[in-house]
């Protein structure tokens, strides 16, 4: 146990000896990892936003401007009986104008209008279904008499969802490529270390060290370097989000809304660190497997 500890302190000592080269390596790993991980964070935020907005899709049904109150009543009854509709809300044109006045601060402009430009409307809450079934319902409702237009409010959300899927694929590809780069960086670092410690490895082999004993410090080193790279990536992402949120708060103040990017969740942070640690270990393992056997005893 104490010997393993001695091996680890040896690894740390070696790491601190090569301050510059070591920190450059860690920075390279950190930057490489922060790209896909940062994109992932942005995607998570966008997805959260989409879920928030399109949580319950609804269909807005705008009636003809000349529709009478009776027409609206009839339509309301009809809609309430529809099998794929959960509930219906009627918004009278006067009520809609009032809401518009209050919510947008355009009271002056609206007050200047000599007649109400808004039609009567129904807000239809469909029962949960797929994008296709919702669209079918929208088409069906649009054909009803006295209906001017049926609008599926979450249509853009589905488009965004498709865009997010594309983004996720991009993150995956980027993560795959940059993980490969991380493994390559570690592979090379360990290769150089094996070369410089050739003598030590040779002596250890000659006095009865198992391959496992010789391999271990290199694997520790790879894992540690990967972990530090992961921490660097985490710091880069957190710092970037801090800067972005600072700018966003100025922006959202103008829009009188509260919007901020969420940082990496504790679970995702842990995953990032473990993953980078694993990649470092893997790079070291590959390098050791490749290069240790090339050391010939003399």
């Amino acid at each position: 146990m104490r010997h393993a500890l001695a091996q680890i302190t040896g690894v740390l000592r070696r790491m601190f000896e090569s301050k510059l080269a070591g920190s450059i390596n860690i920075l390279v790993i950190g930057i490489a990892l922060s790209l896909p991980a940062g994109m992932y964070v942005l995607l998570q935020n966008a997805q959260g936003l989409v879920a928030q907005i399109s949580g319950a899709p609804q269909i807005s049904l705008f009636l003809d401007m000349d529709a009478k109150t009776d027409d609206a009543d009839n339509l309301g009854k009809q809609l309430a009986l529809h099998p794929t509709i959960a509930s219906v809300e009627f918004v009278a044109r006067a009520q809609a104008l009032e809401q518009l006045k209050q919510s947008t601060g355009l009271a002056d402009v609206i007050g200047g209008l000599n007649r109400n430009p808004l039609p009567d409307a129904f807000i239809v809450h469909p029962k949960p279904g797929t994008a296709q079934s919702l669209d079918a319902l929208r088409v069906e409702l649009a054909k009803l008499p006295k209906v001017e237009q049926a609008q599926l409010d979450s249509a853009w959300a589905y488009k965004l969802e498709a865009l997010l899927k594309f983004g996720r694929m991009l993150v995956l590809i980027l993560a795959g490529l940059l993980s490969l780069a991380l493994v390559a960086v570690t592979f090379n670092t360990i290769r150089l270390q094996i070369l410089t410690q050739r003598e030590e490895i040779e002596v250890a082999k000659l006095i009865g060290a198992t391959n496992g004993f010789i391999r271990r410090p290199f694997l520790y080193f790879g894992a540690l370097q990967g972990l530090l790279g992961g921490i660097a990536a985490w710091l880069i992402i957190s710092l970037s989000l801090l800067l972005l949120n600072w700018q966003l708060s100025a922006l959202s103040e103008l829009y009188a809304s509260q919007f901020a990017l969420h940082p990496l969740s504790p679970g995702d942070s842990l995953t990032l660190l473990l993953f980078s640690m694993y990649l470092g270990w893997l790079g070291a393992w590959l390098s050791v497997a490749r290069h240790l056997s090339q050391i010939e005893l003399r």
Partner: protein
Amino acid sequence: MIKFNQVNKRYPGGYQALKNVTFDIAEGEMVFLTGHSGAGKSTLLKLIAAIERPNLGSVLVNNQNVGVLKERALPYLRRNLGIIFQDHKLLFDRSAFDNVMLPLQICGFDYRESHKRARAALDKVGLLKREKSSPIALSGGEQQRLCIARAIVNRPAILLADEPTGNLDAEYAHEIMAIFKSFHQVGVTLLISTHDESVLQDTGVRVLNLRQGELQPASPFATSGGSGQAASTGSGQA
């Protein structure tokens, strides 16, 4: 303890380092291996530690055929051997003490016990006061003794020494021979290679003489060196 049977070693490129070498070293015996440089002494020692493998014949150490040992088994063979290398093979990035600790770390000894043993080994070769020095600060003789301390620290049954007095002056050489004799007295099997016959004087131990890879029936160096008692071993004797 160590048994060579019709051993041939040819290096890639065709150089024949050992030809039909056969001998037997009993447990607790102290044997010298002599011959000019290039006679095959180092090769013979390397075959015992399985650093090289024979092309023909068998090398038995402790009744184990080391020539056919699997790579995985080699570390455990080498832990039973103490090897003193011609070029010392000390590590200059750590203290003398840490150099001696290395074999114990490799074997996974208890930490406190290793400390005791390492200091005892350094004491045995008279280097306890220099334990914190880097090997580079040690003289040639001290480096050689440090190498011995490292070889004996895990108390191996067999000690192999390749030219341990190679480039030391006579006084240092005798000191080191005295250390070897003390190991011999406690029952360690020793095989010591040397091209320097002067150290063989008054030793009265057995001598294996190699010439161009062949074991000589009698040892002219030992006898001309004034040690008539040095028993010679023919290649047929086992």
